[in-house]
């Protein structure tokens, strides 16, 4: 009797678990937020980048669920079960219509960064030693940009770091090539190797001028080559000249 009762209770328990699990699943579906497409149509890509093909087009009035976000792309599920990725700027009207606010970062990005800010990095030689640079350029107008650069040099006697800024003038911007001239100033920090005795860390001001060229590769990516001449003011009456040759990549946001 007791045995039958416990078996019955076990059966009831399993049924309860299954029941709650199914209910949970249905509830889980609800955790994704819904939105109704406001744009005339939405292009649905297979992945979160423009390079991934468009495999479906959602229409105005269609209900979508927002599954997740990666960089500037939203993964959506359509009412027919299809899932794909939509760019934020394409779905913006829909999101705003549902009461979503553009946050500060997105507003800043859309107004000042997208299509403007350029970031670059590459390798080269500085005074014969291998070097690496990272730079950011911000265009003031069609022909003038401001620039900040950090250069790291690995020498036999220790390493050198150069932090500088300046302006870049683009006298020629063609489809296949653009030319630039740059000048600016900064500081040179020399960090001697631990093996050297009596060597001290030193910071000196520098001024530089250079010329460069840039070749568009794909989409927003460029191949850059540059020559710069550095004058380092090591002491009040002493200067040193260094030549830098660089090759690198840059991209525009």
């Amino acid at each position, binding site marked *: 009797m007791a045995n039958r009762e416990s078996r019955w209770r076990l059966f*009831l328990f399993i049924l309860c678990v299954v029941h709650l699990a199914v209910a949970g699943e249905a509830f889980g579906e609800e955790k994704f*937020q819904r939105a109704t497409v406001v744009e005339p149509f939405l292009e649905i890509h297979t992945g979160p980048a423009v390079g991934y093909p468009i495999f479906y087009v959602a229409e105005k009035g269609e209900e979508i669920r927002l599954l997740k976000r990666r960089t500037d792309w939203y993964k959506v599920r359509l009412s027919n079960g299809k899932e794909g990725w939509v760019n934020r700027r394409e779905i913006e009207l829909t999101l705003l219509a549902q009461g979503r606010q553009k946050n500060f970062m997105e507003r800043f990005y859309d107004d000042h960064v997208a299509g403007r800010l350029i970031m670059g990095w590459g390798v080269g030689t500085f005074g014969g030693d291998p070097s690496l640079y990272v730079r950011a350029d911000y265009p003031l107008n069609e022909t003038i940009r401001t620039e900040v650069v950090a250069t790291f040099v690995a020498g036999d006697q220790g390493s050198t770091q150069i932090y500088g800024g300046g302006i870049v003038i683009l006298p020629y911007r063609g489809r296949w090539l653009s030319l630039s001239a740059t000048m600016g100033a900064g500081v040179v920090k020399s960090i001697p190797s631990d093996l050297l005795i009596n060597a001290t860390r030193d910071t000196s001001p520098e001024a530089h001028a250079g010329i460069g060229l840039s070749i568009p590769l794909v989409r927003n990516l460029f191949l850059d080559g540059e020559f710069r001449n550095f004058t380092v003011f090591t002491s009040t009456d002493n200067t040193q000249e260094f030549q830098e040759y660089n090759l690198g990549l840059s991209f525009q946001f």
Partner: protein
Amino acid sequence: MGRRVLTTVMAIVLLAGWGAAALAENLPQSEEPVIKPETSEQELSEAKIDTESLELGAFYGAYSMDGFGTTGVYGFRLAYHLTEDVFFEGTYAVTRFDQSTFQQLTGRSLVADDQVVYWNVDAGYNLFPGQIFLTRRKTINSTIFLIGGLGQTSVDRQDQFTFNAGTGFKLFITDWLDIRLDFRLHAFQSDLTGKNEMTYNLEDTASIGFFF
């Protein structure tokens, strides 16, 4: 007594669930409203949308030390995807310095500690995002990327400033799971061969990564 209460509770849970389901099914379907309101009843919250821009990966491969042998290498990567094109990635890896040939020839060891550790911080660019047809119907997303940066390599407990550059190929099994192949060149100054010179070390690795 306790058992009976438990049984009753379970029965109530089941009955309540079924009852609600039955009621929901029998509810009269509301007709299309004459005027559809422009705004939706549910306000969208960005915070409720799961953001996946970080990628964690583990890799294994071969590291070929310039002038010496090739050994296994393993490590971890953590990437932050800034835009669809650009990502930043930190790597930590461990490999071994193969001095077996040197030991055979000279009968002594070149370095006391043959473990080599490196870390680096890189910037990457997704050069060719696209799709690959595995069969006529089954496609998967892929990308070919360029990557490069700087870091440190520790050989015989001496840290060397290291540049690295290379290319890689990534296949997305799902949206959040990927496998990738990397071909990388690590360049650093070394005096292990007798004179202090730039060494160029090749590395091929395979990794598995997931977005979170």
